[in-house]
């Protein structure tokens, strides 16, 4: 599906609005859109909505051998997918430049900032470690994917619980959630990305650009920071030149936004934990607002299955009973048999047609096939192959055999009767069996 292009009028309109410090959705320049976090029923699963941008995150784990150069560290794997659902321009199985760039940023934000303690993921040094895998799926693209992805990623990692393990000697036991409570990952800090879009060569600046704004921006600055005001990653793209003050201003804004978002994340995590502890309802179903008219819920409904047996029985008895078996297999040669009739197989007709041909060809001295294959079992008594003489094979009365003596001029021996009996001999190689065909 093709991406919808942005018209020139739209482009001009947005840029003009930005010059007048107005945004399409009514936000101020430094305003962040609403962030909403909802958790799934599984651990390590969440959906983060940043305005209309929506990202699904899922963390999973697996026991694997560690990398040889880091035998005591767990393995982290991050993968962001741009689902074709998110925007019409995204195609499955393609790696557009944007995706590569985003994945690099996620790597830098979550891996290189060392926010996850990888050493705590080691089970047996050099043998078994946990591999933590974070899958991020963009579900709806309304700009600023990276911020939403970084929030979703860190929330999912904080929410995730891996199975507890114990090591006794060489035995590694993995406990089910029923046996032992799963363990959370040890997370040192929460890096969060904040994006700034620049317009008119850096004159105007917007926080958290929407998709439309992104499509007209000149450059983008992404700063990843944790709540301790430590910058984890900073990246400017789009080829604009920024003044030092601008970068500093951005980092100050980032600090404020990160503090707000971190608070929100912590609140959301606490809330979810509380609900789970108290045995309340949780999962995506709870995150659907009841008052929305586009949403509808139905409580568990009973289906009357009282007399399904009778009804099913009725259908079966009404149907015709299984018919008698008609088809009788016809055995051609050991290992080959046939049932049914009707449409002729384009491979199968060779036996008959070649027989006909053979009649025509009688007398011509053309070579038709090499034949000096050993023939097993019952045929060996009459069929023998000798080295320097033409090979003679003939026990079956009606079988025609053509032999090529490879050294000299081709000779052939053919014995044939015109009877059309079913072949009893087994011809090993040249497939000239005759079939008794029902059609005749």
């Amino acid at each position, binding site marked *: *599906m*093709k991406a919808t292009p942005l018209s020139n009028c739209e482009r001009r309109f947005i840029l003009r609005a930005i010059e007048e410090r107005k945004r399409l959705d009514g936000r101020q320049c430094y305003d962040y859109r609403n962030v909403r976090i909802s958790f799934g029923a599984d651990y390590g699963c969440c959906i983060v909505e940043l305005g209309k941008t929506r990202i699904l995150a899922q963390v999973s784990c697996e026991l694997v051998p560690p990398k040889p150069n880091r035998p005591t560290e767990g393995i982290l794997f991050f993968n962001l997918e741009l689902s074709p*659902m998110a925007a019409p321009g995204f195609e499955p199985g393609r790696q557009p430049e944007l995706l590569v760039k985003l994945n690099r940023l996620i790597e830098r934000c979550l891996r290189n900032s060392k926010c996850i303690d990888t050493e705590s993921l080691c089970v047996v040094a050099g043998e078994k470690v946990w591999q933590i895998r974070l899958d991020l799926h963009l*579900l709806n693209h309304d700009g600023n994917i990276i911020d939403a992805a970084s929030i979703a990623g860190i929330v999912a990692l904080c929410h995730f619980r891996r199975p507890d393990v114990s090591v006794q000697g060489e035995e590694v036991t993995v406990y089910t959630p029923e046996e032992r409570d799963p363990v959370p990952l040890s997370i040192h800090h929460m890096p969060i990305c904040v994006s700034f879009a620049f317009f008119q060569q850096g004159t105007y600046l917007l926080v958290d650009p929407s998709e439309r704004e992104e499509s007209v921006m000149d450059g983008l600055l992404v700063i990843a920071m944790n709540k301790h005001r430590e910058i984890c990653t900073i990246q400017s793209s789009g080829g604009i030149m920024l003044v030092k003050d601008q970068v500093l201003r951005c980092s100050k804004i980032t600090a404020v936004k990160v503090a707000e978002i971190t608070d929100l994340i912590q609140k959301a995590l606490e809330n979810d934990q509380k609900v789970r502890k108290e045995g309340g309802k949780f999962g995506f*179903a709870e995150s659907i607002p009841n008052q929305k008219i586009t949403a*509808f819920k139905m409580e568990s409904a009973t*289906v009357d299955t009282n007399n399904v047996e009778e009804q*099913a029985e009725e259908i079966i008895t009404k149907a015709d009973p299984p018919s008698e078996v008609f088809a009788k297999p016809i055995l051609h040669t050991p290992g080959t048999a046939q049932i049914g009739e009707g449409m002729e197989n384009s491979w199968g007709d060779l036996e008959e047609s070649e027989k006909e041909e053979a009649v025509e060809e009688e007398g011509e001295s053309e070579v038709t096939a090499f034949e000096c294959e050993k023939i097993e079992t019952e045929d060996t008594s009459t069929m023998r192959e000798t080295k320097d003489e033409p090979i003679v094979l003939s026990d079956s009365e009606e079988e025609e055999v053509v032999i090529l003596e490879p050294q000299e001029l081709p000779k052939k021996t053919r014995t044939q009767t015109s009877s059309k009996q079913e072949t009893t001999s087994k011809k090993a190689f040249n497939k000239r069996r005759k079939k008794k065909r029902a059609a005749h």
Partner: protein
Amino acid sequence: MAEEEEEKMAAAGGGCCLRPFSCEQGLLSRPDGSAAFLQGDTSVLAGLYGPAEVKGSKELPDRAALEVLLRPKVGLPGVVERSREQLLRQTCEAVLLGALHPRTAVTLVLQVLSDAGSLLSCCLNAACMGLLDAGLPLSSLFCGVTCALDPNGAIVLDPTTRQEQEARAVLTFAIDSTERKVLTATTKGSCSVEEMQQCLVAAQRAADTIFQFYRDSVRRKYSKS
């Protein structure tokens, strides 16, 4: 939470009871139609684009070219997803009046949000709600129902993951809304002919409930417009 569900079901009289359903339509801003469908803790999100311009090689002269993509939550789609995509596509094709939009493309993307049993039927329901939300012309609706046969041979409708694992056989049907006929059937495990027919009858009855749910949610959506 699985146990809770089961307890509740036991209270509600045997296994013949559907888990709580919820559905939200039009929740995504980019797609032309979208719907999230939840059956208990199983949830699937559907997003649909189209009818839109089609790439040359995929173009069909007499109808819309429907593409269904099923995205698993972890990892990349594999052979299982590809075979389910085919099944879902052919189910949607059977009801979609594609001939009204020749030489166009319709793309339906299904994203698994969580799997707690009866995933395929949830995919079918999400797909149908997505088609509805996009306002595409359909000859009928369809719904997905999963039935499990527990070790005693009793029918369990809309089973959870654990019920599916314990079951002897799990059958999933897509039932159409006009005559309650079978659009799609797929089975796991083996069962007798009688059991299959019983499950089918049960699924047809469950379909009535689900279609009522469809009707109510669509009515609610259009209640204020």
